[in-house]
C-alpha cells in the first residue's frame, strides 16, 4: 500500500497550470524536393514542446497559448524519417505565422531523433554507439506472428533462433554473445518507455518429477526443458502491426542507462501514434500457407525386427525385438508408409488488423484491433495459436505546457501445442522410429478401440492401461491436449510537462499484467510416466509496475556549445507466481480435469517478487556542432542484491565526432568516428540472499525415492536449506568498449558502418560448492569471468534512386568470439538447458560440446587403446587420423574405430560469422525485395540421427549389410573400409586400417556410434551453417484515381511474399536452426526429435483510407 502511495505521489508533482489568451498560430505546408506534399512530417518547437504533424496534403497548424507568447525567439523544426530535418528561428508573436518547409531526402538519417532509453534521446550524429533500428515496414514484411522472430536477419549480431514450427512457439534472441553463465540471457524489452516481460515457461516445468529434475523446485525454469511443448515467449502478445520501430541497444556501452538489467542489451519498441489531421483507416489482411520446411530422410526397405528376423507378433512392450527396424527386407509388393510426411499437412495463418488513427492539434489517437488465427502444420485439431489484440494510444494537450497520454493494449492468446523432444508421448520420437511397413493409421484399434502403436499392435482390454512404449504419433496429435490460454494487458499513462522553454519533465506509470493458464492432458493410454493418463495444470500470473520520472534540460549556449542534461528516477516492481497440480491416472477418459484423477502430486506454489529503484543522469555536450560527448551514471538498488551490496553504480561515456565537419576527404559526404564505454548488469535470481528453511528437502535417503522430510510423525519440522544465503551478492557486471565509424560516400549512394567491440563480464554468479562442515554445501558467489568481442559491418548501397524506380541493397556481417576466463575452481560447468554435453570451459568459447569421441592420432592419449602405443601406430599419420582396431584390444570389432573414454571438446556451436543480404527493387508502384540470412560455422549435435541409426529407420541405414548376430562375422554385404575415400573419409591408422567390413546392424546398432544412448557423440556432431532465403516478396500499390474515386480508398497495397522458402545447408537433420530446450537453452546446437520449422507463402492486402 505504501509503495502504491509513493507511486501516485509522482503524479501529483505534475499538477497542471492554467493558460490565458493572446495565442500564436503557426501553419504552413511541407513539401519534398520536386514539390510533392509530405504527410506525417512532425513540425514542432523543441523549446515549447508544441507542434503537430502534417496532413496528407502536407499542411500543418498548431497554436501556442498566449501565456507563453512573449516575443521570444523560438526554433521550429520539421522532421520526417528519411528526410533531412529543417529548422528555422522565428520570433514568437501573437497572431498567425506562416512557415513552409521543403525537405530533402536523407539516406543517412542525419538529424533523426534516436530514442536511447530511460527518457533519453539524441540525434543520429550525436550517437556514440552503432545504431540498429528496425522500421515498421521491415517488421511487416517479415510476416512473423512472433515479434522476436521478425527481428531475424535485421541487425548484425542479433541472433534469433526459432525452437520449432509449432504455432506460437518461442524464439530465442541473443545479442553479441552470452554475457552470463546461469543468469538471464535475454535483452530487456521496453515498450514506449516501460519495461515488459518476455518470459517463456514450458508447462512441463510444472512437472519436474517426470522430467527427471529435482522434486520440490516447482515453477522454476529448469525442469522440462527437453520435452513438453514449445512454449511461447511472451512478446508474441504484441501485434507487429502496432509497432512504429524497434531500436536495438546492443551491449553494455549502449544500454548502460538501464543499469542492472541491461547486460544483454535492450530492445526499445515504439508503438504507433495518431497524427493530427483527417482520420485514417487501415485494414491489413494476410493469409499464409505454411508447410514443413524439410522432410526427414527415412528408409522404406527393412522391417521391424532384430538380426534379420521378424519381431512379430508385437503385443508386449517388454519385447525388445519389437523396438527397432533391423528385421528382414520387406518383400516387393508389401505396402510401406511415408512416416516422414504422414503427420503433416498445410498450415495457415489468417491475420487481420484494423487501425484507425487521427486527431487534432490538441488530441491524437491510434486505435487498433487484430485477430490472428494460426493453424499448425501437424494433422489433427490440436495445434493452433490464435491471438486477438486491441490497442489504444491517445494524447491530449491539457495546457500549453502539459500533455498527458495513455497507451493501453490487451492481448488474448489461445493455443494448443504439440509434445516434442525427448518424450515418448511426443510427436517425432514415435513417428520417426515407426518401422516402414507399419501403418500408424488408424491410431485406434478397429476392434478394441484402444491406442495401437507399433510396439503394441493389437491392444485388447487386457493391455489397456499399459504403456505403449512410444505413443502412436497420430494418437498424440489427435488425443493429447496441450493448452495455453493467456490474457495480457500492458500499457502506460504519461505526462510531459514543459516547465520552462528549456526544461521539461516526463512521467510514466506503466503496467504489464499476464494471466497465463495451462492445461495438459495425456489420455489414459499414454506411455511411460503418463501411462494411465496424466493431467498437468497450472496458472502463471506475471505482473510488473514501472514508475519513472525524468527531467531534461536542453540549452544551446552558443553556436559552438550546447548541453543536454537528463536526470531520472525509476521504481519497478515485478511479481511472478505459479500455481500448479499434477494428477495421475484418469478415472474416466474425459474430461482432462485434475478432479478426474486417481492420485495427485503435492500441489506447487512458487512466487517471486523483485523490487528495484534507480536514479540516473546523463549529460550530453555539443562542441562546434561536430564533437559530441555523453556521460551517464545509473545507480540501481535491488532486492536481489545482497544485503551489504544493495546498490550498484553503472557508468557510461561516449564520444562522437563528425570529422567531415572539420575536414571532408574527397568522395566522402559524411563521416563520423565514435567510441563508447559502458557498464551494465545482470540481476541475480531472486532470494539467493535470503535465509530459508526447508520443510520438503529430503535427508538420509539411500537411493532415488527414499528419504526423510524434516517433518516426522505428523509434527511439522524444518531445517536450514543447503544453500548459504549470499549476503554480499552483486549483479553480474559487463564492461564493454565499442568503437567504430559511419561514413557516407559516392554522393549519398552508399554508406558504411563498422563497429568493433570487446566486453568483459565479471562477478558472474555461480552456485559453487562449499565445505559442508561450514553448515551449507553450496553458495551463490560472484565468481566467474568471461569475455566477448566482435566486429560488425553494415554496408548500404543505393545504386538507383530515381523517383520512378530505385534499387537498394544492404549487407550485414558480424562475428562474435567468446571465452570463459574463470570459474571458481572448476575446469568446466555444464550449461543450463543444454541437452548434450554443452559446457562452459576455461579458455574455450561458451557452450562448446564436450563428449566422447573416437580414438584419433595426436588427439587421444597414447594409452587410449589397451595394449597399443598410439604414438607408434600414428607415426607418419596426420593429426586427427582415425585409429582402426583389429579386434584384439578390448575396444570392439575388427575394422572399426575405438571409443576414447576420455571426454574431449568435440565442437563449437557458436557460428564463425553471421550475415545477411537485403535488397529491394522498385519500379513505380511495384516493389520486389528479398532477404538472405547466413550463418557460417557452428555445429549441432544431431541426436535424432544417432537414435534413428540405432533404430534402423534412418535413410542412411537403407544400404545395410544383412546381420544375423551382433558381430562382423555374422554380417554380410555393404562392405566398407574406414578412411580414405570410402567410409568416414580421411586418414586412418592402426592395425585394422584398410580392413573391409560389412556395415549393418553391427555398426549402427551394436557398436558405439548411436550418440543419444550410451554411444559416441562424435559422429553426431555436424556442421550447422546455413544460407536461408528468409524473405522474398513482391508488392504493388494502387493509388490511382479509380482507387480513390470508385473504392473510396487512398491506396490499396498487394503483397505476395515467401518466408524461409529455401535453406542451403550440409546439416542432415530437419533444420540447422534448432534447439531442444528452445528459449531455455543458453547456447543451442542440440537436436533431439525437435519439431520441424515451416516455410510459407503469404498474401497480404492493405486497404488505406
Amino acid at each position: 500500500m505504501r509503495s502504491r502511495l509513493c507511486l501516485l505521489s509522482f503524479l501529483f508533482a505534475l499538477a497542471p497550470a492554467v493558460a490565458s489568451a493572446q495565442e500564436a498560430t503557426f501553419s504552413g505546408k511541407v513539401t519534398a524536393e520536386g514539390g510533392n506534399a509530405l504527410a506525417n512530417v512532425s513540425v514542432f518547437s523543441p523549446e515549447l514542446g508544441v507542434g503537430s504533424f502534417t496532413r496528407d496534403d502536407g499542411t500543418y497548424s498548431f497554436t501556442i497559448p498566449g501565456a507563453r507568447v512573449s516575443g521570444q525567439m523560438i526554433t521550429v523544426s520539421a522532421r520526417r524519417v528519411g528526410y533531412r530535418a529543417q529548422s528555422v528561428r522565428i520570433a514568437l508573436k501573437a497572431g498567425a505565422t506562416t512557415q513552409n518547409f521543403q525537405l530533402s531526402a536523407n539516406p543517412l538519417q542525419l538529424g533523426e531523433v534516436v530514442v536511447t532509453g530511460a527518457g533519453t534521446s539524441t540525434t543520429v550524429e550525436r550517437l556514440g554507439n552503432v545504431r540498429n533500428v528496425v522500421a515498421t515496414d521491415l517488421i511487416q514484411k517479415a510476416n512473423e506472428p512472433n515479434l522476436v522472430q521478425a527481428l531475424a536477419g535485421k541487425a548484425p549480431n542479433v541472433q534469433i533462433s526459432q525452437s520449432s514450427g509449432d504455432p506460437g512457439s518461442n524464439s530465442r534472441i541473443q545479442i553479441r554473445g552470452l554475457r552470463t553463465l546461469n543468469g538471464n540471457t535475454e535483452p530487456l524489452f521496453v515498450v514506449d518507455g516501460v519495461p515488459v516481460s518476455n518470459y517463456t515457461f514450458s508447462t512441463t516445468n510444472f512437472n519436474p518429477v517426470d522430467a527427471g529434475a529435482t522434486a520440490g523446485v516447482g515453477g522454476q525454469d529448469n525442469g522440462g526443458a527437453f520435452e513438453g511443448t514449445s512454449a511461447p515467449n511472451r512478446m508474441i502478445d504484441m501485434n507487429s502491426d502496432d509497432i512504429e520501430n524497434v531500436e536495438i541497444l546492443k551491449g553494455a556501452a549502449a544500454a548502460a542507462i538501464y543499469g542492472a538489467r541491461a547486460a544483454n542489451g535492450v530492445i526499445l519498441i515504439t508503438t504507433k501514434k495518431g497524427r493530427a489531421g483527417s482520420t485514417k483507416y487501415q485494414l491489413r489482411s494476410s493469409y499464409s500457407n505454411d508447410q514443413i520446411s524439410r522432410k526427414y530422410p527415412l528408409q522404406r526397405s527393412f522391417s521391424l525386427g532384430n538380426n534379420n528376423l521378424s519381431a512379430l507378433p508385437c503385443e508386449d512392450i517388454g519385447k525388445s525385438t519389437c523396438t527397432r527396424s533391423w528385421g528382414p527386407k520387406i518383400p516387393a509388393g508389401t505396402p510401406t508408409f511415408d512416416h516422414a510426411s504422414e503427420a503433416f499437412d498445410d498450415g495457415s495463418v489468417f491475420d487481420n488488423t484494423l487501425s484507425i488513427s487521427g486527431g487534432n492539434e490538441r488530441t491524437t489517437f491510434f486505435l487498433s484491433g487484430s485477430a490472428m488465427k494460426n493453424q499448425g502444420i501437424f494433422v489433427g485439431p490440436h495445434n493452433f495459436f490464435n491471438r486477438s489484440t486491441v490497442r489504444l494510444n491517445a494524447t491530449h494537450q491539457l495546457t500549453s505546457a502539459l500533455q498527458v497520454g495513455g497507451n493501453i493494449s490487451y492481448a488474448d492468446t489461445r493455443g494448443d501445442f504439440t509434445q516434442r523432444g525427448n518424450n515418448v508421448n511426443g510427436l517425432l520420437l514415435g513417428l520417426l522410429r515407426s518401422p516402414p511397413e507399419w501403418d500408424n493409421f488408424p491410431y485406434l484399434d478397429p476392434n478394441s478401440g484402444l491406442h495401437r502403436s507399433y510396439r503394441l499392435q493389437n491392444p485388447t482390454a487386457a493391455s489397456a492401461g499399459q504403456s505403449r512404449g512410444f505413443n502412436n504419433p497420430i494418437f498424440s496429435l489427435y488425443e493429447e491436449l496441450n493448452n495455453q490460454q493467456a490474457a495480457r494487458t500492458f500499457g502506460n499513462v504519461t505526462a510531459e510537462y514543459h516547465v520552462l522553454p528549456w526544461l521539461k519533465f516526463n512521467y510514466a506509470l506503466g503496467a504489464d499484467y499476464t494471466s497465463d493458464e495451462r492445461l495438459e492432458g495425456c489420455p489414459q493410454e499414454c506411455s511411460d510416466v503418463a501411462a494411465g493418463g496424466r493431467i498437468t495444470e497450472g496458472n502463471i500470473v506475471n505482473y510488473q509496475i514501472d514508475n519513472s520520472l525524468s527531467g531534461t534540460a536542453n540549452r544551446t549556449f552558443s553556436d559552438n556549445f550546447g548541453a543536454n542534461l537528463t536526470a531520472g528516477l525509476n521504481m519497478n516492481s515485478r511479481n511472478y507466481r505459479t500455481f500448479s497440480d499434477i494428477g495421475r491416472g484418469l478415472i474416466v477418459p474425459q474430461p482432462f480435469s485434475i478432479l478426474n484423477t486417481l492420485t495427485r502430486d503435492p500441489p506447487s506454489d512458487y512466487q517471486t517478487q523483485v523490487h528495484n529503484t534507480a536514479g540516473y543522469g546523463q549529460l550530453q555536450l555539443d562542441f562546434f556542432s561536430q564533437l559530441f560527448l555523453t556521460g551517464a551514471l545509473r545507480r540501481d538498488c535491488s532486492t536481489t542484491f545482497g544485503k551489504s551490496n544493495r546498490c550498484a553504480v553503472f557508468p557510461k561515456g561516449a564520444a562522437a565526432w563528425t570529422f567531415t565537419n572539420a575536414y571532408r576527404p574527397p568522395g566522402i559526404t559524411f563521416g563520423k568516428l565514435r567510441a563508447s564505454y559502458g557498464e551494465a548488469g545482470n540481476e541475480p535470481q531472486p532470494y539467493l540472499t535470503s535465509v530459508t528453511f526447508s520443510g520438503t528437502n529430503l535427508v538420509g535417503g539411500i537411493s532415488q525415492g527414499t528419504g526423510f522430510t524434516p517433518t516426522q510423525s505428523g509434527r511439522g519440522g524444518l531445517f536450514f536449506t543447503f544453500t548459504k544465503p549470499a549476503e554480499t551478492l552483486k549483479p553480474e557486471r559487463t564492461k564493454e568498449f565499442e568503437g567504430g565509424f559511419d561514413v557516407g560516400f559516392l554522393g549519398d549512394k552508399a554508406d558504411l558502418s563498422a563497429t568493433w567491440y570487446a566486453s568483459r563480464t565479471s562477478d558472474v554468479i555461480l552456485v559453487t560448492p562449499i565445505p559442508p562442515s561450514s553448515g551449507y554445501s553450496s553458495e551463490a558467489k560472484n565468481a566467474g569471468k568471461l569475455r566477448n568481442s566482435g566486429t560488425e559491418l553494415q554496408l548500404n548501397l543505393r545504386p538507383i534512386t530515381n523517383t520512378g524506380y530505385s534499387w537498394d541493397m544492404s549487407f550485414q556481417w558480424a562475428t562474435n568470439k567468446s571465452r570463459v576466463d574463470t570459474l571458481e575452481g572448476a575446469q568446466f560447468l555444464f550449461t543450463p538447458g543444454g541437452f548434450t554435453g554443452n559446457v562452459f570451459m576455461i579458455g574455450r568459447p561458451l557452450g562448446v560440446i564436450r563428449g566422447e569421441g573416437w580414438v584419433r592420432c595426436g588427439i587421444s592419449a597414447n594409452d587410449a587403446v589397451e595394449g597399443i602405443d598410439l604414438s607408434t601406430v600414428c607415426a607418419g599419420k596426420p593429426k586427427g587420423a582415425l585409429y582402426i582396431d583389429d579386434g584384439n584390444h578390448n575396444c570392439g570389432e575388427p575394422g572399426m574405430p575405438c571409443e576414447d573414454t576420455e571426454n574431449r571438446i568435440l565442437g563449437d556451436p557458436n557460428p564463425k560469422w553471421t550475415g545477411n543480404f537485403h535488397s529491394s527493387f522498385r519500379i513505380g508502384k511495384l516493389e520486389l525485395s528479398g532477404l538472405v540470412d547466413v550463418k557460417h560455422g557452428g555445429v549441432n549435435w544431431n541426436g535424432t540421427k544417432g537414435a534413428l541409426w540405432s533404430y534402423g529407420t534412418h535413410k542412411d541405414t537403407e544400404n545395410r549389410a544383412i546381420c544375423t548376430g551382433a558381430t562382423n562375422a555374422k554380417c554380410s554385404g555393404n562392405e566398407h573400409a574406414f578412411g580414405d575415400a570410402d567410409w568416414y573419409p580421411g586418414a586412418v591408422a592402426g592395425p585394422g586400417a584398410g580392413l573391409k567390413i560389412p556395415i549393418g546392424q553391427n555398426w549402427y546398432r551394436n557398436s558405439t556410434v548411436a550418440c543419444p544412448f550410451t554411444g559416441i557423440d562424435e559422429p553426431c556432431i555436424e556442421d550447422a551453417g546455413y544460407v536461408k532465403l528468409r524473405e522474398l516478396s513482391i508488392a504493388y500499390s494502387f493509388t490511382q484515381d479509380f482507387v480513390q474515386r470508385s473504392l473510396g480508398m487512398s491506396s490499396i497495397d498487394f503483397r505476395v511474399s515467401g518466408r524461409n522458402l529455401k535453406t542451403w545447408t550440409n546439416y542432415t537433420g530437419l533444420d540447422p536452426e534448432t534447439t531442444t530446450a528452445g528459449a531455455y537453452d543458453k547456447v543451442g546446437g542440440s537436436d533431439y526429435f525437435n519439431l520441424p520449422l515451416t516455410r510459407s507463402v503469404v498474401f497480404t492486402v492493405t486497404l488505406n483510407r
Partner: protein
Amino acid sequence: MRYTRSLIAGAAVITGLSGCGKFLDATKAVADPNAPTVASINQLFIGIQANIFGQQEGPAAMLICTWVQQCGGTAGRFVEQQGAYILTNDDFDTTFGSIYTAGGLLSIKDAEARADAVGDKKYKGIIEVLEAMDMLFAADNWGAVPYREATTSTQPAFDPQLQIYDDLLKLLDQAIADIGAGGTGPGDFDLIYQGNSTKWIQAAHTLKARIYLHLAEARGASQYTSARTEAGLGISTPANDFKAAHSAATSERNMWYQFQQTSFGQDLVAGAKLVTIMQAQNDPRLPEYFKKNAAGTFGGYDVATKGTVNGDPSTILGAGRNTATFAQPIITNDENLLIIAETAFRAGDIAGAATALNTVRARYGKAAIAAPTLTDIMTEKYIALFQNIESWNDIKRTCIPALKPALGRTVVPGRIPYGETELQTNTNALTDPPTLITGRNANDPTACPSA
C-alpha cells in the same frame, strides 16, 4: 511563477520518494516467500531428529550392515559395489554432509542457542545429547573431522578423533547436568522420549559408555572401567530404549522399509555370517530379521566367496522389522546390558558378565551360559545389534565375530571415505589415507586379521 512551479514539483517529488524507503525492504521481495524464513526451536528439533534417524538408518547403516556381513550386497549395482569396498569419495558427499548441513550441526547449534535464549536448560540438554550422537556418528566413521570450528568458520579445521571423543564426553556431562536442571523441554515434539528426563539421562550415560569403549583400543583397559560405570547408569529397561519414530507417511517411513520399496532395495539381502551364527544358536530372532527364501530356508550371501550359504539369500524383509512404522532400535537396554557383560568380563567379574548376558539371552528364550567367554558376549551383541552401526565399532575393537574380507581383499574397511565436496572445497581438509579401504582411524590402529 514558473520557477515557483518547478520548486513545488521538485518538492513533491522529493516527498514522494521519501515515502519509498520501505520499497526495497518489502517482505516478499527480500525474504523468499516460497520457504519459511523463520523456524521455531520445536520445528528445528523435529528436523534434527529426522536427520539423526537418517544417519542411523540411512546409507551408512546399510553400508556397514554389508561390511559387518549382517547383510549382503548383490545384483551388481551400487549396493554390491559398496559392499565389496568399491568406493569413491563422491558416494559419501550426502552422508558426510548430514553431520553439518540441514538438520545437522547447523540446526543443532541454532536450536541450542534458542533454548539458551529462553533459559530452557532441559531442552538444551536434550539437544546436546543429539549433538553428541551426531558428532559420534562423524568421529566413529570418519575419524578426524571438523567439530570445534564447524558451522562457525567457512574453512573449518579438522579436529583429531580422540579430541572429539573427549569433547563429547564433556558435552554429555553437560547435557546430563542441563537435563537435570529442569525446564519446559520439547514435550511431544520429542519423538523419542516425549520429554522424559530420566530416559534422556540414561541414554546419555549409555552413549558415554559407548565412547569409552571406542577409546579402549587406543587408551587401554581403564576405559572399560569407565564404560562399566556409565553403563551402570545407562538404559535400565527396554521401555527406555532410544528408538527412531516413524509414521506411515511416505517420507516418514522406516528407511530400511523405504529402501525395500525401491528396485535397489532388493539388492540388499541377508549376510551369510549372521545367518550362520543365528542358525547355529537357533536364534528366535531369525524370522524377525529375515524372510525365508523360496526353498523355505534362511540363506545368506557371503561376500568373501561371492557365494551363498544355505541356498538363495534371504531378503531382509523379516516379519518383525519390515514395516513402515517399525521403530528402529538405536541405543537399547540390550546393548547397555552387553556393555556391562563385556566390561565385567574384562574386569574379571565373570559372574557379573553372566548375569548381564543371560538377562539378554533369556529375553529371546535362549539358554543361560554359566561362564561366558568374550566370544559368547560379543556374538550375542552382534546378533542384538543387527542393522545398528555400533556393530562395526565392536568388530573393529574386538574382531568378534571374525570376518573374512570380500573376495580379493585383505581387510574389512576401518573407516568411511570423506565426502568429495569437503575434500575439494576445504583447504584445511585432511586427505584420506592412500587407499580408501585400508585407512584406519586413531582409535582403531590395528586391523583385524582375516578369519
